[in-house]
């Protein structure tokens, strides 16, 4: 870039791509740096589930706003993004989980999200491969799935079309943020920009030490093509009782039908697992769990298994905004398993704040400053 870019975005994953696009739309010039291919990090490792979530009001606000932005974008997304409005089916195994279906349904309905409660027969007829005897489920028809690497590439291409002044270098390993608006590459080269936006996912703490982002490893399996084996993204509600919410290694049943007819099977969560290797026992637990929900899943042909690292924060909310005391380093990271869903709303909040505009949803719950207080309260989970 001949002149100094207004914004240097570190990371060409889905969040960095969305931030670059929103910056360009706001008329800012942008330089995107990444050490590898577009969407080659956690973006490539994830499922690409666009899902409205209800763990907290702030999580709901961000996921629902972002799903709305995805729906607005849908018409212009190219074929290879594979947007598929398959909906989410949350399945309840027993009465206790059915009570959660009712609670969840109320939560969504009160906030204007269309849902449908299914009884045992309803679940069985909408997903015949599920085991008999499940209590019921909750269908969220507006949820969708996309293929994330192509979505990230599209957002970057769109940024170029809209704002024009977007450049990127995908061989640029970033060594450090050296000073206000300045980064040093692993090659030694120094680049000066207006501000730096760190959208480096689980690697963000390497560039901004002290941020409470931890790697949370996951495994996924993709199968050969079995069109119709599953129709919705199906997620178990049993994770409430499992260890998915705690620090221990955990697995939960989650399956996604791809537009190609392939099935993507998850999920696992692990802290303190820095390596990228497939861990056979955890993988086995994950698949056994999946098999307990869909008994014929074991007979499908698995083509590939891989792992990735989610960028997890203590309160399960992403970090969006300036680093306290340093208004030239901004963060857009810590999305754990929801980065694909929340990328668009993240970018919207970031750029609205950057431009001094009022964000569409309150930005405070995601502000990096919230951990200033948390740090003084070591009991915080």
């Amino acid at each position: 870039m001949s002149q100094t870019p207004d914004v240097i975005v570190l990371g060409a994953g889905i969040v960095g791509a969305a931030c670059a696009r929103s910056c360009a739309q706001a008329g800012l010039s942008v330089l995107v740096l990444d050490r590898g291919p577009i969407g080659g990090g956690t973006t490539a490792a994830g499922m690409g589930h666009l899902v409205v979530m209800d763990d907290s009001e702030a999580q709901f606000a961000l996921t629902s706003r972002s799903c709305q932005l995805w729906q607005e974008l849908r018409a212009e997304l190219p074929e290879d993004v594979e947007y598929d409005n398959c909906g989410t089916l949350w399945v309840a195994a027993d009465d206790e989980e059915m009570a959660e279906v009712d609670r969840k349904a109320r939560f969504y309905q009160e906030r204007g999200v269309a849902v449908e409660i299914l009884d045992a027969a309803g679940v069985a007829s909408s997903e015949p491969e599920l085991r008999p005897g499940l209590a019921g489920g909750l269908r969220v028809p507006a949820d969708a799935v996309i293929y994330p690497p192509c979505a990230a590439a599209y957002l970057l291409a769109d940024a170029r079309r809209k704002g024009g002044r977007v450049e990127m270098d995908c061989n640029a390993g970033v060594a450090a943020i050296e000073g206000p608006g300045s980064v040093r590459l692993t090659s030694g080269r120094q680049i000066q920009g207006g501000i730096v936006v760190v959208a480096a996912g689980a690697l963000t703490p390497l560039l901004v030490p002290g941020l409470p982002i931890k790697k949370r490893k996951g495994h996924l399996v993709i199968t050969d093509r079995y069109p119709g084996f599953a129709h919705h993204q199906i997620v178990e509600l049993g994770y409430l009782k499992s260890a998915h919410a705690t620090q221990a290694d955990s697995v939960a049943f989650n399956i996604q039908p791809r537009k190609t007819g392939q099935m993507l099977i998850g999920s696992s969560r692990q802290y303190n697992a820095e390596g990228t290797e497939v861990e056979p026992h955890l993988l086995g637990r994950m698949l056994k769990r999946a098999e307990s929900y869909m008994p014929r899943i074991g007979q499908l042909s698995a083509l590939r298994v891989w792992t990735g690292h989610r960028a997890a924060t203590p309160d399960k909310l992403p970090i969006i905004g300036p680093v306290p005391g340093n208004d030239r380093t901004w963060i857009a990271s810590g999305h754990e398993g929801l980065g694909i869903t929340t990328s668009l709303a993240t970018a919207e909040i970031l750029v609205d704040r950057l431009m001094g505009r009022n964000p569409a949803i309150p930005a405070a719950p995601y502000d990096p400053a919230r951990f200033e207080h948390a740090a003084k309260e070591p009991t915080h989970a």
Partner: protein
Amino acid sequence: MISPMPECDLLVVGAGPAGVAAATVAAERGRAVLLLDDTPWLGGQIWRGEQQKPTNAQAQTWLNRLARSGVRIIGEARMVGLEGPGRYVIETPDHHWTIQPKALVLATGARELFLPFPGWTLPGILGAGGLQTLVKTGWPIEGQRVVVAGSGPLLLAVAAGLKKAGANVVGLFEQASPASLARFGTQLIAHPDKIGQAFGLRRQLAGVPYKLGWWPVRAEGVNQVERLVLTSGRQTLTVDCDAVACGFGLVPSLELPTLLGCLLDGEAVAVDAGQQTSVQGIFAAGELTGIGGNDKALVEGQVASLTAIGEHAAVFPLHRSRNGWRNFARALGKTFKPRPELLKLAEPQTIVCRCEDVTYSQLSGYTSWRDAKLQTRCGMGPCQGRICGAATRQLFGWGMESVRPPVLAARVASLIPSDERI
């Protein structure tokens, strides 16, 4: 399922010449040996059918020795991954189980290299080795006009086999230049039996037009191949045909050794003098260490096995022969290396990845195999890049990427460790 053999002295994967030799010599010395192959037969690609219908004395000798040696053989069995250090997951059509051998010999062989040219995906165009295999298993080829084109000594054997099966071989086209083959010929002095083989094949091909320095540029046809257009760089030639047997040589099947962490040396598994890979206790033999044919495979299989079981004294006499075949393999690679023109045959709309229908133009512009895979799904289909991976390495100079388990498509159930099932 309970493992049919939870432990053994030696586990051999692949029952071609290298695997057969490795398994046999260890079992002959009293070791407990398990030999796996993903087909129901012994002999691999090169000795396919020898078990049922013997034609090759060398194959018979080894298959007889194997039968007498006490090796436990399991067909339709594939190693799909690791459950822990030294604990391998094996899948058969009905079961999966784990095994913990004292040593492992990998002899998974090679597959054909396909370089895309316009029309190469038309029905009727098959790999040279692939068509040979089909014909051996009864594919009706009698009276059909077949062109054999591509590169490597396999073409001669394939053409001879097709002719014997009643095909009308309308032409045999080798891309390597006459000069390059002449240089290779002089090096064959060290391997007189190879010269004999080559002359034997040429005799069987009497009457078949045989051209050196010619290669295919385009296949044409409506619903299936009707003609193949070839060039020598100066002239072109159109040959009407019903089928094309085409292959540009062989490439080692590196997925399993790569997944197990074995380092590579170029396009082959790196091994030491005892055929041990960079991973302690894992050996590699045959085409995996460099394409060189069955004689190299037989001697490497023996060296690997004897080293693995600690019979070092028995290994030394084999070194000289093994080193000779390694040199032969190097000369082979040099002689039949695809010429640069072959890398420019694909047109923008030519399909490169058949599983995911990815064209040449969709792939140009990416800087790495991974980048291209993520954005175009090239290599993400059922074959997991086994065909297009080698082609894109040649076409775009992309490096190999890390291999993701399972090595071969495996049942989801096979990925669940047995103790997780209790």
